[in-house]
Every structure is written in structure tokens, then in C-alpha cells.
């Protein structure tokens, strides 16, 4: 068993052509990867304790949000990769893969839901991108 720090993280995201691009050097924040099983209360009359059952549906809780310094590097920079909120139902999903350390990875298909460029006095321009996952998570 090993523990890992931020130096071990690798972030990869597909470009518009479906080719995985390493984005690690542009990402300073990841809001957290939450995988959740949807439960339903199942206790009945006569039960003294709450009971729950898994409904069989799982999801990634909320959006996966990445953030970092805005960079206008063409083709492979964060603005080139993330500045494309999904335009409609026919848009192809993109694969997000996060390596936490060692060989363990988290992968899920996503739509780019929101891209923002907040500006702040005395600071470098930043970007944030919210990714809406869809479908199965692959843990490898």
C-alpha cells in the first residue's frame, strides 16, 4: 500500500478529434472524484433502524471541475481543449482519465458542461471547466 501526493497525478482529456491530451501541466485544482451509489430508504413499519438498499444506479456526484492558469497555447493548451461547451445531443463525449499515483486510474466519458475565465486584480488569468460525466466509471 502506498500513499501519493500531487506530484503523482496525471490528468488526460480528449481533444475534439478524440485523441488523449495530457493536461497535467495546466491543472492546479481538481474538485474531487466522487463515485456514488444511489440508495433508497427501505425500512418499514416495525423496523427500529433506518435501512437502505442500493437501487442499482451509480453516478459520479456532481460535476468534475478542473481549474488552473489560463493559457492560450494553440491545439494543446487548456483554452484550446476545454473552451467548447457541448452544443447538442450529437456531440461526442470525451474521455477524462486521472491517474492518482502508481498505476491506478479513473476514467469516465464526459461532456464539457461549462468553461469560464475568471479575471482578478493582481492575479494571473485563470480558467475553470466543469465536466458532466455520463455512463460507467472505469477504475483500473
Amino acid at each position, binding site marked *: 500500500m502506498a500513499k501519493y501526493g500531487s506530484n503523482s497525478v496525471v490528468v488526460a482529456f480528449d481533444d475534439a478529434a478524440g485523441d488523449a491530451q495530457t493536461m497535467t501541466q495546466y491543472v492546479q485544482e481538481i474538485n474531487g472524484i466522487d463515485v456514488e451509489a444511489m440508495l433508497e430508504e427501505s425500512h418499514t413499519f416495525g423496523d427500529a433502524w433506518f435501512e437502505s438498499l442500493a437501487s442499482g444506479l*451509480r453516478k459520479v456526484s456532481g460535476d468534475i471541475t478542473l481549474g488552473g492558469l*489560463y493559457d492560450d497555447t494553440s491545439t494543446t493548451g487548456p483554452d484550446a481543449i476545454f473552451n467548447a461547451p457541448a*452544443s447538442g445531443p450529437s*456531440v461526442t463525449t470525451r474521455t477524462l482519465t486521472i491517474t492518482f499515483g502508481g498505476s491506478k486510474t479513473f476514467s469516465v466519458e464526459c461532456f464539457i458542461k461549462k468553461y469560464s475565465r475568471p479575471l*482578478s486584480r493582481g492575479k494571473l488569468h485563470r480558467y475553470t471547466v466543469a465536466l*458532466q*460525466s455520463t455512463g460507467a466509471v472505469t477504475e483500473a
Partner: protein
Amino acid sequence: MSKYGSNSVGPILVGGYNLVNHTTDIPAMGAESVMEQSDTMGDAWQESTPVGLRKGAFGIRGFYDDDAETINESLLGTQGTPKVVCVLADGNTVGQSFRGMAGACGYKLSRVPVRGALHKVNADFTVTGEVEDGVVLQPYEAETADGNGTAHDSGLQGEAIDITASSEADPTEISTDDPHLLLTGDYVLIAGHTGSTPDINGVHAVTVTGASTFTIAVEVTVAGTGGTVQRANTRDGGAGYQQIGAYTGITGYVGKVQHSADNTTWADLVTFANVTAARNAQRIAASGVVRRYTRYVVDVTGSGSLTVFGGFSRA
């Protein structure tokens, strides 16, 4: 330079007012795609699908100022009125990017007095319509006379396709090794083609005759071979943005965005409405082919000066 700091921020133009000297933060400037949960019975994982609707967001935080023609005057009393917004986050020079919105309105304006601090202003906008990324063609600066701005080169589009040969014909037909993916009306740059009389290297308008053939309006008397062809235009139109701040003395102003395939022969792409007073902001859409080079043209009537910004966003 690929990263930028707050010192790089140029004009923040809202309905013809430049608010950069009052703005300390822009907490939201972007677009969001509306999603709907789409998983069904039998699915083990939740799924989502974009519904085809996107929405913009824009907000300003800054210092309250009740001087004429500053932040309070520009925002107060006009809630619900759509404003054209242009944010030059990366600088005020030709070729830098800007973000444009045509319908920033319905906003909430808060004036925030705080003990021991300067009064602040918070303005949050609801954006109706597109949020677009464009290129600065006319920096926001004073102009007093007619003139053509510096051309911006958006580069060639798609991939360079190898040319097989040109034909002895009028017009000559160019054949390519692979499908060229061109449409009639496109402009192309032919380079490295040898042996033809006359030399056909350069920019030409095309007429498509087949998946791997097209003609250009040149009579070739000796066929040539080789070289490459690459498209020199985009096809989906775009939008021109213009913001006018100060305006004194002159009696009329018509700004234009022009385009060119070769940076020599220019045609009007967008013509803004005649402006006769200060604090004017316009967004004009353009459809179809937008050639490789764009520039902004100043056309002043009368004697005086105005402060003007011009830019273009390709779709």
C-alpha cells in the same frame, strides 16, 4: 506569451462604456451547456445528454463611482436592456483575443457600502444569445481620420492536400491525390506546384468538379505537377463587434470589417450602422465564407475624434 495577468487586461467595454478602471474582478465570464439526465431502466450508471442549449454568464465586481460616464451611470437604471459586452482580457492590440456578448441584460446591480472601506459595485448579467471568442482588429483608441487597420491573419484551414497535376485547359482543372474536401466558393493557397505555364502558385477561388478535382480561373497552356492545396477561408460566418466611447466634433462614423484571401484585394464583410453619438455598441452577424485575412476600416465624416474598438469572431 501564453499566460496573462491582471496587468494585461485591456478595455472592458459594456454598451460603449469602458469599465476597466473600476473593475477589480470578473468572477464569471463563460458559457455553459444545459444537460438533462438521460439514463433509463436497465442502466447501471447515470447518464447525461446535452439538450442543445447553451447559456452565457458575465459579472463585474469593482469600485462604486458616481462620476458621469463611469460605472454607476453605465449600469444604473438600464436593467433589462441588452448590452453589447467586449472584454479584452489579453490586451488591447490587433490579434489579441476578446470575448463578446450581444445580449448581456437582466442583471442584478448591488451597491455595497462597507465600514472602513470604499463602496463597491457588484453587477451580474444574464446573457441572452451567444458568447463568442474573437480577435481584436481595431484597438480601443482615439481615431480622427479615415484609415485601414492592420490585417490579421487567421491562417490556413484544414490540411494541405497533395496536388497530382494541373490540366491544359481554360479553366485549368486541378486533380489531387486525396479528396480535397473543398466547396465551390472556397479560396485556396496553391504552393510548390511546378512546370505549369503560367505559374499557378498563389491564392485562387475554386469551383469544385469532383471529390478530387476542382478548377481555378486560370488558362494553363502547359500542365504542371505536384505541390499542395490548402483552404484559405472559414465557411460558417461570424460576427463583427464595434464599441464607441467618446465622440466629439465628427458628424458621422461608419466602421467596417473587411476580409481578403491574399491580403491584397479586400471586400466588405461587416458594415456597422452609422454612429452619430457617444456610447454606441453594435454586433453585426456575417454569414458564409470568411476569408483568411480580416481588418477594420475607419470611416469618419467631419472633423473631430472618437474612441473606437472593432473586432471579429469567426463561427
